């Protein structure tokens, strides 16, 4: 029974239809929903892109970055500056991607020199230096008062309200970012990232320079961060040093882990988590926000190391296990596995200790069950 159901869910036609329905829903939604909901959805899109960038360096390449919010902030400031000085909007977007990319490249060139956790130790400084720097460069950034830029009002020919237009901008640019990153991590670069994450020495032996791929991943993460900064200005239209404060960076990291490290869907869930959960905890108990966030993060690490994105997989394993154990004859794993769920049922041939979050992570589940 269960196996048949999952079988239907996994046919390409069904998945295609599902994706089509999702796209149609996303496109139609803002026309029907009230303004605050549209704005919230757009904000989710913004931070989903930021989490996506963090996922490239951290989820896929295994290098902890505590500075992702800095690149969002940088992208936002570049956008604001460009708009204020009347640049063409395409040029503004380009600058908001390239400048964070170059800064990320320089940071990574130094930080990745040291193996291990140096990237984490260096990137933690980015938001902490970034805030006073943004205050200092007040000619460009508007100091602690911040800077606003209105460029995302809906053009007349569209007949849309501002919130709808902003939503569509986020949907289009964010959607393209997701597609590009999806293709990146599925291809040869993604494989190289994963090997660097698993074992740097092995990567080196295979001719994959851990240093180069870490720098590459970090640069891409910074550029995606810049995109999210541009989108942030589309939606919020205002940025101040508070945008790149340290605690936001930690929240971003928490959102990525809770959503699912090394997962595209996880990035989207991370964006939802980043926007909605603080709203919720602020309503319930403002003084407990940080406490609850820390507790949720640790709890997820304890019970669901792959994040919420791995939940269906974990559930499928559970249900699969119970349905398989009912017919006592035949050795279950070999007999029934290939037909029902081909991809995750390959036995954990990698060492269980290292592969905790990579997509076919039967290992992480195995590890927790005993």
């Amino acid at each position, binding site marked *: 029974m269960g196996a048949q159901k999952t079988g239907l869910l996994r046919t390409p036609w069904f998945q295609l239809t599902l994706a089509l329905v999702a796209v149609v829903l996303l496109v139609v939604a803002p026309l029907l929903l009230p303004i605050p909901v549209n704005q919230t959805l757009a904000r989710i899109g913004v931070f989903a892109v930021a989490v996506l960038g963090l996922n490239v360096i951290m989820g896929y390449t*295994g290098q902890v970055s505590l500075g992702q919010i800095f690149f969002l902030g940088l992208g936002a400031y570049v956008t604001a500056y460009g708009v204020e000085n009347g640049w063409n909007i395409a040029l503004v977007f380009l600058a908001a991607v390239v400048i964070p990319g170059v800064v990320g490249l320089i940071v990574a060139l130094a930080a990745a020199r040291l193996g291990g956790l140096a990237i984490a130790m260096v990137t933690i400084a980015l938001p*902490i230096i970034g805030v006073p720097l943004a205050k200092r460069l007040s000619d460009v950034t508007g100091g602690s008062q911040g800077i606003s830029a209105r460029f995302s009002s809906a053009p007349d020919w569209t007949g849309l309200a501002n919130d709808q237009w902003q939503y569509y901008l986020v949907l289009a640019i964010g959607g393209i970012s997701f597609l590009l990153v999806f293709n990146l991590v599925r291809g040869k670069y993604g494989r190289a990232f994963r090997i660097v994450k698993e074992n740097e020495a092995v990567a080196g032996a295979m001719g994959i320079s851990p240093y180069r791929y870490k720098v590459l991943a970090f640069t891409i993460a910074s550029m995606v961060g810049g995109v999210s900064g541009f989108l942030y200005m589309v939606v919020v239209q205002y940025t101040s040093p508070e945008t790149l404060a340290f605690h936001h960076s930690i929240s971003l990291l928490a959102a990525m882990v809770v959503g699912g490290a090394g997962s595209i869907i996880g990035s989207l869930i991370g964006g939802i988590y980043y926007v909605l959960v603080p709203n919720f905890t602020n309503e319930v108990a403002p003084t407990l926000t940080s*406490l609850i966030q820390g507790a949720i993060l640790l709890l997820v690490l304890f019970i669901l190391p792959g994040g919420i994105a791995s939940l269906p997989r974990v559930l499928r394993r559970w249900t699969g296990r119970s349905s398989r154990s009912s017919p006592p004859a035949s050795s279950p794993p070999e007999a029934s596995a290939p037909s029902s769920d081909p991809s995750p049922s390959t036995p954990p041939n990698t060492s269980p*200790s290292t592969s905790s979050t990579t997509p076919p992570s039967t290992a992480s589940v195995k590890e927790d069950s005993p």
Partner: protein
Amino acid sequence: MGTFIQLVVDGLAMGSVYGAIALAIVLVNQSTGMINFAQGGMAVLSAYLAFTFLGLGLPLIVAILLSVAASFIIGALIERFLMRRFMGRAEDTQVVVTVGLLTLLTGICGWLWSYNNLQFPSLFPSSAFTFLGAAISWRSFGTFLAIAGIMVLLQLLFRQTKLGLALRAVADNRQSASFAGLPVGRLLMVGWGLAAALGAVAGALVAPRLSLTPGMLDTTLVYALAAVILGGITSPVGVVVAAWLIGVLENLAAVYVPIIGHDLKIAVPFILLFVVLLLRPQGLFGRKTVVRV
């Protein structure tokens, strides 16, 4: 000249605080191979504990000593019941656990003691004495001396006692240490406890200067991490020297280099770091590590 000496002594005092946190990070790293991003958060909790003991009417020095003892226990418990669960997991997961711990501890402090600034009394008088024509505050001098003294004690512990030998054995090779009959689990707890206690001293000494808030040591943590990289994570002495260097240089740069000023002095260690990382990635005093597959 007077200002210069004053700046150097103040820098040494702040540098000692960075050094204490950095040394705590090195202590944990040497025994478990991980970086504890919650080291500053744990020290803040310790400072709040001292503040509470003080509120119970205990004298300051007793309150601080009690909080140091409590921190030792808390550190050991965190190792046993949180970090132990993630031992052997990927490095990045362990770091995320400590980041989660930092958030949780900040949240606990904010919940129990509010996010407002609290005034924490100083162990040393706020007066100053003159030396070579420079007015040197007792606070800075005392902070420097106290932490330098504790570092000597730690060095003695590691070099001269059986416990220190056992701790070093666990740090060197956990498996061999366990084969030799050492209680590895308990020693890891001791390592974490010592690190937390060291952080507690630093927290209590710096709290009067920064005024007590849940995020008090976030910036200090960044300095400490810079010191750890600069000094080389394998070299405790190097880390402390690097921390003093950072403390002094940032103070001098803040006053004598107008572009930097007081608001941007946190950039100083990272400019330094940048240069060192590109030229000497193992740190000023560290040794290159060879990775075996």
